[in-house]
Protein backbone atom coordinates (compact mmCIF):
# COMPACT_ATOMS: atom_id res chain seq x y z
CA UNK A 1 0.00 0.00 0.00
CA UNK A 2 1.28 3.45 -0.86
CA UNK A 3 0.39 6.82 0.52
CA UNK A 4 1.45 9.26 -2.14
CA UNK A 5 1.70 13.01 -2.18
CA UNK A 6 -1.23 14.84 -0.72
CA UNK A 7 -4.31 12.76 -0.08
CA UNK A 8 -3.80 9.69 -2.21
CA UNK A 9 -3.87 6.10 -1.10
CA UNK A 10 -3.39 3.10 -3.34
CA UNK A 11 -3.69 -0.59 -2.53
CA UNK A 12 -3.44 -3.75 -4.60
CA UNK A 13 -5.06 -6.96 -3.45
CA UNK A 14 -5.33 -10.48 -4.77
CA UNK A 15 -8.75 -11.60 -5.90
CA UNK A 16 -10.04 -13.09 -2.69
CA UNK A 17 -13.35 -12.06 -1.14
CA UNK A 18 -11.74 -11.77 2.28
CA UNK A 19 -9.67 -8.85 0.97
CA UNK A 20 -12.75 -6.74 0.23
CA UNK A 21 -13.15 -5.53 3.78
CA UNK A 22 -9.63 -4.13 3.92
CA UNK A 23 -10.35 -1.86 0.97
CA UNK A 24 -13.72 -0.87 2.43
CA UNK A 25 -12.15 0.07 5.75
CA UNK A 26 -9.55 2.23 4.00
CA UNK A 27 -12.32 4.04 2.15
CA UNK A 28 -14.29 4.66 5.34
CA UNK A 29 -11.28 5.90 7.27
CA UNK A 30 -10.30 8.24 4.46
CA UNK A 31 -13.81 9.70 4.44
CA UNK A 32 -13.92 10.10 8.21
CA UNK A 33 -10.51 11.77 8.22
CA UNK A 34 -11.84 14.15 5.57
CA UNK A 35 -14.63 15.13 7.95
CA UNK A 36 -17.50 13.07 6.56
CA UNK A 37 -19.90 11.69 9.14
CA UNK A 38 -20.27 7.99 9.94
CA UNK A 39 -23.30 7.50 7.74
CA UNK A 40 -21.73 9.12 4.71
CA UNK A 41 -18.50 7.19 5.20
CA UNK A 42 -20.47 3.96 5.49
CA UNK A 43 -22.27 4.40 2.17
CA UNK A 44 -19.08 5.26 0.34
CA UNK A 45 -17.52 2.19 1.93
CA UNK A 46 -20.46 0.17 0.64
CA UNK A 47 -19.91 1.47 -2.90
CA UNK A 48 -16.27 0.48 -2.69
CA UNK A 49 -17.23 -2.94 -1.34
CA UNK A 50 -19.57 -3.52 -4.28
CA UNK A 51 -16.97 -2.33 -6.80
CA UNK A 52 -14.21 -4.52 -5.40
CA UNK A 53 -16.53 -7.53 -5.17
CA UNK A 54 -17.48 -7.09 -8.82
CA UNK A 55 -13.84 -6.74 -9.83
CA UNK A 56 -12.99 -9.97 -8.02
CA UNK A 57 -16.01 -12.00 -9.08
CA UNK A 58 -16.90 -10.72 -12.54
CA UNK A 59 -13.68 -9.04 -13.63
CA UNK A 60 -10.99 -11.40 -12.42
CA UNK A 61 -13.30 -14.45 -12.23
CA UNK A 62 -11.99 -15.29 -8.76
CA UNK A 63 -8.52 -15.97 -10.18
CA UNK A 64 -6.37 -15.30 -7.14
CA UNK A 65 -3.38 -14.67 -9.42
CA UNK A 66 -5.15 -11.61 -10.74
CA UNK A 67 -5.09 -8.35 -8.85
CA UNK A 68 -7.54 -5.64 -8.01
CA UNK A 69 -6.13 -2.15 -7.56
CA UNK A 70 -7.93 0.50 -5.53
CA UNK A 71 -6.81 4.12 -5.67
CA UNK A 72 -8.29 6.84 -3.50
CA UNK A 73 -7.59 10.46 -4.43
CA UNK A 74 -8.94 13.41 -2.47
CA UNK A 75 -8.86 16.75 -4.26
CA UNK A 76 -10.39 19.40 -2.06
CA UNK A 77 -13.78 17.99 -1.12
CA UNK A 78 -14.00 15.63 -4.10
CA UNK A 79 -13.09 12.01 -3.54
CA UNK A 80 -12.19 10.00 -6.61
CA UNK A 81 -11.99 6.22 -6.26
CA UNK A 82 -10.63 4.04 -9.04
CA UNK A 83 -11.07 0.28 -8.89
CA UNK A 84 -9.22 -1.68 -11.58
CA UNK A 85 -9.20 -5.36 -12.44
CA UNK A 86 -7.48 -7.58 -15.02
CA UNK A 87 -10.64 -8.95 -16.57
CA UNK A 88 -12.06 -8.89 -20.06
CA UNK A 89 -14.58 -6.16 -19.48
CA UNK A 90 -18.34 -6.12 -19.93
CA UNK A 91 -21.16 -3.97 -21.27
CA UNK A 92 -22.65 -1.97 -18.38
CA UNK A 93 -25.70 -1.26 -20.53
CA UNK A 94 -26.58 -4.93 -20.45
CA UNK A 95 -26.91 -4.99 -16.67
CA UNK A 96 -30.60 -4.99 -15.91
CA UNK A 97 -32.32 -2.32 -13.83
CA UNK A 98 -33.09 -3.90 -10.45
CA UNK A 99 -36.04 -1.53 -10.05
CA UNK A 100 -37.72 -3.02 -13.12
CA UNK A 101 -40.54 -5.21 -11.76
CA UNK A 102 -39.23 -8.06 -13.89
CA UNK A 103 -35.92 -7.91 -12.01
CA UNK A 104 -37.15 -7.13 -8.51
CA UNK A 105 -37.00 -10.73 -7.28
CA UNK A 106 -33.71 -11.59 -8.93
CA UNK A 107 -31.00 -12.72 -6.55
CA UNK A 108 -28.28 -10.68 -8.24
CA UNK A 109 -27.73 -7.50 -10.20
CA UNK A 110 -27.90 -4.79 -7.54
CA UNK A 111 -24.21 -4.00 -7.09
CA UNK A 112 -23.88 -1.35 -9.80
CA UNK A 113 -27.21 0.16 -8.76
CA UNK A 114 -25.94 0.59 -5.19
CA UNK A 115 -22.73 2.19 -6.48
CA UNK A 116 -24.74 4.68 -8.54
CA UNK A 117 -26.93 5.37 -5.52
CA UNK A 118 -24.14 6.03 -3.05
CA UNK A 119 -21.75 7.95 -5.33
CA UNK A 120 -22.22 11.09 -7.42
CA UNK A 121 -20.84 9.56 -10.63
CA UNK A 122 -19.50 6.24 -11.79
CA UNK A 123 -17.79 5.54 -15.10
CA UNK A 124 -16.35 2.38 -16.57
CA UNK A 125 -13.45 2.28 -18.98
CA UNK A 126 -12.06 -0.77 -20.68
CA UNK A 127 -8.35 -0.90 -21.35
CA UNK A 128 -7.26 -2.02 -24.83
CA UNK A 129 -4.74 -4.46 -23.40
CA UNK A 130 -7.29 -5.92 -21.02
CA UNK A 131 -8.63 -4.87 -17.68
CA UNK A 132 -11.47 -2.67 -16.53
CA UNK A 133 -11.27 0.53 -14.53
CA UNK A 134 -14.17 1.95 -12.62
CA UNK A 135 -13.94 5.56 -11.50
CA UNK A 136 -16.38 6.70 -8.82
CA UNK A 137 -16.54 10.23 -7.49
CA UNK A 138 -18.23 11.81 -4.51
CA UNK A 139 -18.30 15.39 -3.32
CA UNK A 140 -17.86 14.96 0.40
CA UNK A 141 -19.20 18.45 1.09
CA UNK A 142 -22.63 17.52 -0.30
CA UNK A 143 -23.69 15.60 2.74
CA UNK A 144 -24.16 12.01 3.71
CA UNK A 145 -26.72 9.26 3.63
CA UNK A 146 -29.07 8.53 0.78
CA UNK A 147 -30.83 11.87 0.69
CA UNK A 148 -29.13 12.64 -2.61
CA UNK A 149 -29.90 9.17 -3.96
CA UNK A 150 -29.84 8.84 -7.71
CA UNK A 151 -32.42 5.97 -7.53
Amino acid at each position, binding site marked *: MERGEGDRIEITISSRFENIELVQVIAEHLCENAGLDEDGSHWIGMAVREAV*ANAIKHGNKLDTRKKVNARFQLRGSELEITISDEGEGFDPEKVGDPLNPQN*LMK*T*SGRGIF*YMKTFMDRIKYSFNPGGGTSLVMTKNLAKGSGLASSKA
Partner: protein
Amino acid sequence: MKATSRTVGNVELIKLEGKITIGAGDSQLREVITNALNSGKNNLLLDMSGVTTIDSSGIGELVGSYTTVTNRGGKLKLLHLPAKLNELLHVTQLITVFEVYENEQEAANSF
Protein backbone atom coordinates in the same frame (compact mmCIF):
# COMPACT_ATOMS: atom_id res chain seq x y z
CA MET B 1 -22.46 -15.56 10.12
CA LYS B 2 -24.08 -17.23 13.09
CA ALA B 3 -27.71 -18.39 13.27
CA THR B 4 -29.62 -19.44 16.36
CA SER B 5 -33.21 -20.68 16.26
CA ARG B 6 -36.10 -21.00 18.64
CA THR B 7 -39.77 -21.70 18.20
CA VAL B 8 -42.44 -19.13 19.00
CA GLY B 9 -45.83 -20.79 18.56
CA ASN B 10 -45.93 -22.01 14.96
CA VAL B 11 -43.07 -19.74 13.92
CA GLU B 12 -39.36 -20.49 13.73
CA LEU B 13 -37.49 -17.41 14.92
CA ILE B 14 -33.99 -17.39 13.47
CA LYS B 15 -31.60 -14.79 14.83
CA LEU B 16 -28.81 -13.94 12.40
CA GLU B 17 -25.57 -12.42 13.63
CA GLY B 18 -22.51 -11.20 11.78
CA LYS B 19 -21.96 -10.59 8.11
CA ILE B 20 -24.12 -11.58 5.20
CA THR B 21 -21.73 -10.69 2.40
CA ILE B 22 -20.26 -12.26 -0.70
CA GLY B 23 -18.14 -15.23 0.27
CA ALA B 24 -18.95 -14.78 3.98
CA GLY B 25 -22.46 -15.48 5.14
CA ASP B 26 -24.39 -15.39 1.89
CA SER B 27 -24.21 -19.13 1.32
CA GLN B 28 -24.61 -19.76 5.05
CA LEU B 29 -27.95 -17.95 4.99
CA ARG B 30 -29.10 -20.18 2.16
CA GLU B 31 -28.09 -23.23 4.18
CA VAL B 32 -29.93 -22.03 7.29
CA ILE B 33 -33.13 -21.52 5.33
CA THR B 34 -32.81 -24.85 3.54
CA ASN B 35 -32.27 -26.67 6.84
CA ALA B 36 -35.30 -25.01 8.39
CA LEU B 37 -37.50 -25.95 5.45
CA ASN B 38 -36.20 -29.51 5.41
CA SER B 39 -37.08 -29.75 9.11
CA GLY B 40 -40.65 -28.94 8.25
CA LYS B 41 -40.50 -25.35 9.44
CA ASN B 42 -41.87 -23.00 6.85
CA ASN B 43 -43.03 -20.03 8.93
CA LEU B 44 -39.73 -18.24 9.29
CA LEU B 45 -39.06 -14.99 11.09
CA LEU B 46 -35.54 -13.65 10.61
CA ASP B 47 -34.29 -11.47 13.45
CA MET B 48 -31.83 -9.18 11.67
CA SER B 49 -30.74 -7.13 14.70
CA GLY B 50 -27.37 -8.86 14.91
CA VAL B 51 -26.45 -8.41 11.25
CA THR B 52 -23.41 -6.16 11.17
CA THR B 53 -22.75 -5.94 7.42
CA ILE B 54 -24.76 -6.90 4.36
CA ASP B 55 -23.97 -6.30 0.70
CA SER B 56 -25.83 -6.80 -2.57
CA SER B 57 -24.98 -10.50 -2.47
CA GLY B 58 -26.51 -10.79 0.99
CA ILE B 59 -29.57 -8.88 -0.17
CA GLY B 60 -29.80 -11.31 -3.09
CA GLU B 61 -29.74 -14.24 -0.70
CA LEU B 62 -32.53 -12.68 1.34
CA VAL B 63 -34.59 -12.33 -1.80
CA GLY B 64 -33.77 -15.88 -2.83
CA SER B 65 -34.74 -17.13 0.61
CA TYR B 66 -38.05 -15.33 0.40
CA THR B 67 -38.79 -16.92 -2.96
CA THR B 68 -37.74 -20.39 -1.79
CA VAL B 69 -39.89 -20.24 1.33
CA THR B 70 -42.86 -18.85 -0.55
CA ASN B 71 -42.61 -21.52 -3.22
CA ARG B 72 -42.69 -24.14 -0.46
CA GLY B 73 -45.97 -22.72 0.79
CA GLY B 74 -44.41 -20.88 3.70
CA LYS B 75 -43.80 -17.31 4.79
CA LEU B 76 -40.59 -15.44 5.54
CA LYS B 77 -40.70 -12.16 7.43
CA LEU B 78 -38.12 -9.83 8.94
CA LEU B 79 -37.74 -8.59 12.50
CA HIS B 80 -35.63 -5.75 13.97
CA LEU B 81 -34.20 -4.44 10.73
CA PRO B 82 -31.04 -2.36 11.33
CA ALA B 83 -31.37 1.16 9.92
CA LYS B 84 -28.79 0.69 7.17
CA LEU B 85 -30.32 -2.58 5.98
CA ASN B 86 -33.68 -0.84 5.98
CA GLU B 87 -32.25 1.82 3.66
CA LEU B 88 -30.73 -0.80 1.35
CA LEU B 89 -34.13 -2.46 0.99
CA HIS B 90 -35.84 0.89 0.46
CA VAL B 91 -33.66 2.10 -2.39
CA THR B 92 -34.17 -1.14 -4.30
CA GLN B 93 -37.90 -1.16 -3.49
CA LEU B 94 -37.51 -4.52 -1.80
CA ILE B 95 -39.13 -3.02 1.28
CA THR B 96 -42.40 -3.57 -0.59
CA VAL B 97 -41.68 -7.31 -0.76
CA PHE B 98 -40.86 -8.11 2.85
CA GLU B 99 -43.11 -7.76 5.88
CA VAL B 100 -40.97 -6.05 8.51
CA TYR B 101 -41.70 -5.96 12.24
CA GLU B 102 -40.21 -4.28 15.29
CA ASN B 103 -42.15 -6.34 17.83
CA GLU B 104 -41.50 -10.08 18.11
CA GLN B 105 -44.95 -11.05 19.37
CA GLU B 106 -46.69 -8.96 16.76
CA ALA B 107 -44.53 -10.58 14.11
CA ALA B 108 -45.25 -14.10 15.37
CA ASN B 109 -48.98 -13.39 15.50
CA SER B 110 -48.95 -12.21 11.89
CA PHE B 111 -48.23 -15.69 10.46
